[in-house]
């Protein structure tokens, strides 16, 4: 079995060192680099062959959300694990929207981190047990949505992606750029989504997307 290579970004030196020691005591886990602010982390991540990026959400400079977004946009290969001080539902949802694979609250980071890294390295997802309540909310809302608007299931993949990006407050122009489609096509998709979901009015699609952002 090959080593799991990890990059740690956390601005608190003592915490970072503690984390590093715990991780390095576990077999096959190797910390390849550290960063203490978002800018440095990003410079290192771009060139890094790490398997896992362990990111503090509250990094100075670029924060964890920005880094995770950038990793997704640049299609970097590493999986992202968030460390955070906040047991916050909105944070968790945003993280999951950004394709973050592991979400660990710092309260118990040193106990959980090794387990989390192994799970994520094995392709699974990991969320601190303290936060599973929020996960339940998320899936409950998704179920409710499916019941209230069964048409959602009928959306095509592209429509669903457009809707997700709308929920991130992206303009048609930005969505077009991201999906490599023309603005006109995106406008068309937006109109189709409105029709399929039976939404009427100027901002109706946006409102729907926002209200159900975490379930899409």
């Amino acid at each position, binding site marked *: 079995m090959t080593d799991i290579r990890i990059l740690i970004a956390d601005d608190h030196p003592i915490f970072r*060192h*503690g984390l590093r020691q715990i991780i390095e005591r576990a077999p096959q886990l190797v910390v390849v680099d550290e960063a203490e602010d978002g800018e440095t982390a990003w410079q290192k991540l771009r060139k890094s062959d790490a398997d896992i990026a362990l990111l503090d959400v509250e990094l100075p400079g670029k924060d964890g959300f920005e880094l995770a977004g950038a990793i997704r946009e640049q299609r970097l290969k590493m999986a992202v694990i968030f460390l955070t001080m906040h047991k916050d539902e*909105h*944070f968790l949802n*945003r993280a999951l929207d950004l394709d973050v694979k592991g979400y660990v609250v710092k*309260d118990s980071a*040193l106990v959980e981190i090794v387990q989390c890294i192994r799970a994520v390295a094995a392709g699974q997802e990991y969320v601190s047990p303290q936060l599973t309540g929020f996960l339940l909310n998320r899936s409950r809302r998704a179920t409710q949505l499916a019941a209230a608007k069964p048409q959602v299931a009928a959306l095509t993949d592209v429509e669903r992606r457009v809707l997700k990006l709308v929920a991130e*407050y992206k303009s048609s122009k930005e969505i077009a750029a991201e999906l490599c489609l023309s603005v006109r096509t995106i406008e068309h998709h937006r109109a189709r989504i409105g029709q399929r979901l039976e939404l009427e009015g100027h901002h109706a699609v946006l409102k729907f997307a926002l209200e159900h952002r975490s379930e899409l």
Partner: protein
Amino acid sequence: MLLAPMARPAALLALALLAFPAHAQYRLDHWTADNGLPQNSVREILQTRDGYLWITTFDGLVRFDGVRFTVFNRGNSPELPSSRFVSLFEDGDGGLWAALETGEVGLRQRGRFTVYRPPQGRINPFLFDDGHSRPAVHYWRAPASVPGLVARSSLEAYRLLDGRFRRDPDLDVTIPALALPFDSSPDIQHGSKVIDGEQWTVFASRVERRSRKGAIRVYSKDTGLPGDRPTLVCGKGGPVQLTSVDAAGRLWLTELATMKSELLSRQPPDGMLAVGSLVDGEGNIWVNTVGDGLYRARRNAVAAFGRATGLPFGEMYTVLERKDGSLWIGTSGNGLYRMKDGVFTLQAGAGDEAFVVAGGRANNLHEDRAGDLWVNGYWRVSDGRLVRDPATVGYHPGGGFAMAEDGAGARFTGTADGVLRTQDGVTTHLTTRDGLAANETKVIIEDGRGGLWIGATGGITHYREGRLTAWTVKDGVPGDTVRALHLDGDGALWIGTYDSGLGRFKDGRFTRYTTHDGLFDNGVFQILDDGLGWFWMSCNRGIHRVRKKELDDFAAGRIRSVTSYAYNKSDGMPSAECNGGRWPAGVKTRDGKLWFPTMGGLAMVDPRTVRTNREPPPVVIEAMRVDRQSVDAEAWENAVHGGSGAAPIRVDPGQDNLEIEYTALSFINSENQRFRYKLEGADRDWVDAGTRRTAYYSRVPPGSYRFRVIAANADGVWNSTGASLPITVIPHFTRTWWFQALAVLSFAGVIAGAWAYRVSQLRRVQAAQQEFARELIRSQEHERKRIAAELHDSLGQNLLIVKNRAQIGQIAVQDDPALVEQFQSIASSVADSLDEVRNISQNLRPYHLDRLGLTKALEVMIENVAKTTSTRLRAELVPLDDLFSKEDAITLYRVVQEGLNNVVKHSGASEAVVSVERATDSVTVTIRDDGRGLPPDAASRHHGFGLAGMAERARMLGAVLSVDSAEGRGTRVAVRIRLPIARQESA
């Protein structure tokens, strides 16, 4: 009866056991966040040669003058990368170097920091002297791999060469047994410092000192330290003392040179002691702690005996030294004692008749010329018993208060009803009828020529060979309540009173001294001449001393006031309340020590060790403000450091109010330092500022001035050179010749001009007020953000570490259920604290705003408010992110927050809607409710209901707040913000 020593062994044994445990003769002063310290964790402390104390905290570098803390951190020095200072060094040129936790090293010069970056990945710096009075820095070098819990590790050295910190392996040091941050070991290493080429490493229970040549000396309990947890106490040239804490939790101070230890405090500080403490230039010991602030220890002037040395009571009334050198103490309600080396031995119980007649009190002790001890006037100690002198039978039943013998060998006993003269077993009763000034006698002393002075409530009387001469208040006695008499070597009689001050009687003339003349207190229960030029007196507020020469000079009219120095509980007295009206109310023993009975025991002063601080304190002018604005930093430096050719501080016309802050740097009773200042060119005389450290001037006329300030330390020694600052006030244009010419030429024009000027000035004032309000809001937000970040970064992170450690501990001890439970309970209380920190910092600064953007933050806020109110809240928000700067975003957030607050608190609405609408060139935020509406004048005047704050914030956004409300028909508050062209939505 008097107790023979063997008669009551039980009592003796008990007292001997209680006697004289080591007691601290140090006074401790304590500073924490509650009384001015910016943070309770003080990492290092240093005294710079200008006299200031500097300390490092995680909230900045802090300067201390003994009274005021001045903080330098990111808030006022934006060039700093963080505020978490750890280490300090002063170089040979007086430059102050301070290192940050993250490795950067800053040089503080002319009020600013020059920051040197650390080498990659190096943190936890220690600054030290490279051997040439230049800074060098050691970085903690983590071991590359972790072979076990404990490893050898090294400190990697860098020294400043040609403006850069360069690696210098010659200065590297190795530390044995370095513990890892998340592990614990009984021998955890607390720090290592290189001082003057020697490496001092502090462990949990020992200090290792490694010389240049590698010789190691260990200081521990085995080599004479009284306890564990040692810290170094550094003077100018390195460590001179060590502190340690013994098994009973007491804090000890050990001299390195002699390994002699003394008790510093019965109770150690709460926090962890930092690695190094400081002894300053005046001998104060500064103990800095991680978590419990800063302590100053200073040897007490006064030693306490009695309760302090284990006696179960404290009230003492009389004290006497006998010819054999033994010290005898009369108490109230506890009989008569002898004391030797702090051990009190009971000699006669309070049940003895001698005390019973006096209500249990020992009112008088006297040893006659034959060497017999007399107690309460009528009783003589004979063969270990108190025997009533038959010659006293039939006189005042309460016993005596004073006793003395005249040249003829007659014994005089002062009672509440006159004086008894006893000779050859025959007693004569003297009263006012015979010529006494008063009957209630309190004190009798010999006049040195065979006669006596008798003091009583009502006056004083001189007795000689049967002749009585009396003086009362009418003749000049300072008061009726005479308590003490003292005859000095010049033949002057000194009179102490209970409440009327001190009197001097010489050559038929009385002089009176009271608090008006500089006496500390009008109570003078005893007067002792220490033989060193001082009179020591006792009163209800402690003991006080005055130079005898000053008293004589005052009497001769050469000076108009005297200077008193006072001592009370904070100087070590067992109680400030001294006892008097019984004799002797204090004694100077032949070893030169002075003893005073108090309500808490005996107070002892050794006048030879009481030092007046003769060092004039350095005086510094710290800052100047003109109309509440600090003077420009550049101009300030030029004025302060420019020497004689310094460029004066310029005060422009129209700037009316000058404030100048100054200080003096003595750390002995710093708060009692006194100041005088004057503005040369304006003030004729010195202004006596007392202890005030700010000078105020308003409307100084145009001209050139020099502000001078001088200071005296707490013992009244003046630095009369002081410090000075040149100031120039520029004339207003109305005072220049051309303006006056213009005025003559065009009177009407001037009127018009003045009118226009007045109007514009009013406008300026109004604009300034609005700007001030906005600035206040901005700085409040900034401050909230800073505190939230600090809470999160420092307290929060530390709690996280504790919690994590508790959890790791829980796993490590899983076989022991009791320990597991302990760890669990630690983890869960820390979790509660963490939640609290999170809540507080969320209230100060909504973290969603910084991470998830304005729209989401507003959503979360509305959601959270909805949980706490019965009003139904709805949000209709369009995306707003990236439209506003961070500062504008928080302002807008607060507008909505205040608006919602109003709705929830005042409106009584059943439904409220927050909507954000976006037009091409603007954003409109509306909060409307269906509640009871605003009273008519509130809407128009924006008064109350938080509307003023909302309006001010709206103005900061360049927007206008409109309020639309009618009583009973709800309220609609709207803010329309025009967007800058660049942000307007493209069609």
